[in-house]
């Protein structure tokens, strides 16, 4: 999804906040393939992924007013809503959990416009930093983010004990953070 369409997507989200149903339909038409890709990849079941997609767009309609003047890319915001909802389903949590709402708010409306500008204009791609990790460790980070794997699943997939996986990944995350901040 190209970044050039972001301003348009942001405008459609803003119009959803103004209860513009045509804008909602337009937003769905442009972004549903991406978000279905997210729910399908994490849930790995077509009918569950479709149900999740419905819930995700209900949330987007209801919470469009929270995406304002962010600095957070509009596509990233939509993907975050889809990803968080899918993780909730995956971990059999309640459909709406307060802490996720809370963190979405923190990320979207933080009183830190300067930081947000830096984040979006000079955003370091994470790929380069992942390349500096050993490949199986980078795979774990990707697996957690893109597939929603838990520590247990990651340990099983890499055939290591759970505690070993935790230690591995935590060390990798510290290294990754240093690289991302650099």
């Amino acid at each position, binding site marked *: *999804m190209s970044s050039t369409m972001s*301003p348009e997507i*942001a*405008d459609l989200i*803003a119009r959803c*906040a*103004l209860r513009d149903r045509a804008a909602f*339909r337009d937003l769905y*038409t442009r972004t*549903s*393939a*991406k*978000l*279905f890709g*997210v729910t*399908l*990849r994490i849930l790995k079941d077509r009918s569950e992924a*479709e149900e999740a997609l*419905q819930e995700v767009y*209900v949330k987007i309609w*209801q*919470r469009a*007013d*929270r995406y*304002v*003047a*962010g600095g957070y890319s*509009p596509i*990233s915001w939509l*993907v*975050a809503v889809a*990803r968080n909802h899918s993780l909730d389903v995956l971990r059999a949590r309640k459909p709406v959990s*307060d*802490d996720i709402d809370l*963190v979405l708010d923190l*990320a979207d*409306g933080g009183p*830190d416009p300067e930081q*947000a500008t830096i*984040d*979006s204009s000079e*955003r*370091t*791609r*994470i*790929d380069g930093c992942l390349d500096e990790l050993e490949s199986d460790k980078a795979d774990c*980070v990707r697996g*957690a*983010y*893109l597939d*929603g794997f*838990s*520590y247990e699943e990651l340990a099983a997939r890499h055939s290591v004990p759970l505690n070993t996986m*935790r230690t591995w990944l*935590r060390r990798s*995350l*510290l290294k*990754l*953070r240093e690289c*991302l901040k650099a």
Partner: protein
Amino acid sequence: MSTEGHSGGREDDQVLVAEYALGLLEGGERAALARRMVSEPSLASDLRLWRSRLATLDDEFAEVAAPAGALARLEARLFGVAAPGGWWNSLALWRGLTASAAAVAVIAVGVNLMQPRVDPNMLATQLVAAIQSQEGSGVEFVALYDQASGEVRITSLKGTPVADKDFELWYIKGDQPAVSMGVVPIDQRMEIPLDAAAKANIEPGTVLAVTLEQKGGSPTGVAQGPIVAVGTVTPI
């Protein structure tokens, strides 16, 4: 040093935030960190870093066409096509709107205190909306509605004029279409007398929005240009 206990050291915190962003924390641990983020700005800012960096992986989610009919089911559910009125009864929606109005109130009062031209003695009878910039438009207004005079006083705080374009102010009440309040200037204050309909409709929770329209404003009475600023009316 134990990596098991999360005893609260700086490195432990950094790892916790990363685990949170990845979705690896569950249950109580996750909720506890979320609560801490509210009071510890460094954790929240670390989360922003992780989220923005991890989001560059979003490209790796392949697009898959959504199932046919999914949009129709969604619209029926959201807008109650089969059962008109269902949408109005959505508790979650109204709760959401109320919560956002409360959040704007804090901003609005803050903006207001910094506005020397506002007479503090008048505030008790007024409604305010901080009309905040959308997506880097850099356009911001504050609107004060004095119910006694029946006028909205709109003051531009930020923004520059755009050649061959005008900014137009709208109010939106609930699910009804936006209604124009006319073209508004940048860099000066303006009083807009309200008609009876606007007086009846501008109340706490009504949304004020500014769009960029052709010179003279939208000729159709329907907003056509991009939304550059939005705010919710709040009592002060």
